[in-house]
């Protein structure tokens, strides 16, 4: 129950930020701020994956974690190459800060878990995290990105992260 409560809390926090119609509205972010959010979200998932490789002994968790590192690093490489080409730098913003703050709480919680408790928490969080971020990318980011190349990269990224969401769903079911 505690695990579910924490994931739900983080999920609600993200949704609250996503749904804010006034000051903190993800739909109002510019392309460079959106790029910063995506880079931050990628790196957060890479950190979760490294934690999973260090703490889990489950081969399926390891396989998933290695895929997260491989794929998110690939997306980040593409994003940085595009920003370099556009001679632009990502801009920090409220949403990147919120994602980072939430992730630190989760990492702290996960670091104290072992065995099946860790595996279940990690898998459930991966599913919740990908669902939340995919919703954000599909509904708030892609419709509002102005630069065509940045938009194309986000569309590609969304396909990758939807596959991750399905994979996480399979992992959660397999752990029950």
């Amino acid at each position, binding site marked *: 129950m505690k695990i579910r409560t924490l994931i739900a809390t983080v999920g609600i926090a993200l949704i609250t930020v996503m749904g804010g119609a006034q000051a903190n509205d993800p739909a109002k972010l510019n392309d460079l701020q959106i790029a910063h959010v995506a880079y931050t979200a990628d790196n957060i998932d890479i950190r979760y994956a490294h934690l999973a490789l260090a703490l889990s002994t489950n081969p399926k968790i390891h*396989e998933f974690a*290695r*895929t997260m590192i*491989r*794929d998110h690093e*690939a*997306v980040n490489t*593409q994003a940085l190459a595009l920003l370099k080409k556009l001679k632009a730098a990502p801009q920090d913003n409220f949403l990147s800060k919120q994602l980072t703050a939430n992730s630190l709480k989760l990492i702290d919680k996960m670091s104290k878990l072992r065995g099946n408790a860790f595996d279940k928490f990690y898998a459930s969080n991966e599913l919740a995290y990908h669902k939340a971020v995919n919703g954000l990318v599909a509904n708030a980011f892609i419709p509002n990105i102005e630069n065509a190349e940045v938009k194309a990269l986000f569309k*590609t990224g969304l*396909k*990758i992260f*939807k*596959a*991750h969401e*399905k*994979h996480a769903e*399979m992992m959660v079911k397999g752990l029950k």
Partner: protein
Amino acid sequence: MRPFQMQRREVVGWAAAAIAAAILPFTIPVFAETNRKPVTHIVDITDFVFVPKSLEVRPGDRITWVNKDIVPHTATADDKSWDTGALKPNERKTITVTKKLLGGYFCRFHPSMKAKIATQK
């Protein structure tokens, strides 16, 4: 009596072989005789989908998987009996068709990606 028994076994053996030779080409189409020259089938891996998802082949044909995504993929038999290994972006791998290639396969890194290889009729 004994030599006669041996002869009878031989006759039965030859008859079984003749029947099998007559029936097998119709019951196991995987190895059916064909005059068609082997061809190479291309399977693109694009947007996390094997294209085509269902491929019909003949023994001796070749299948080339081409990774057009920005992340690595594999083509791996459902029963893990064959595997292309990791295909980096823009990499390709060709495997010659044998009976063991027939059936379902998936990407080890992204198990929701599935496809199948069947015998061409």
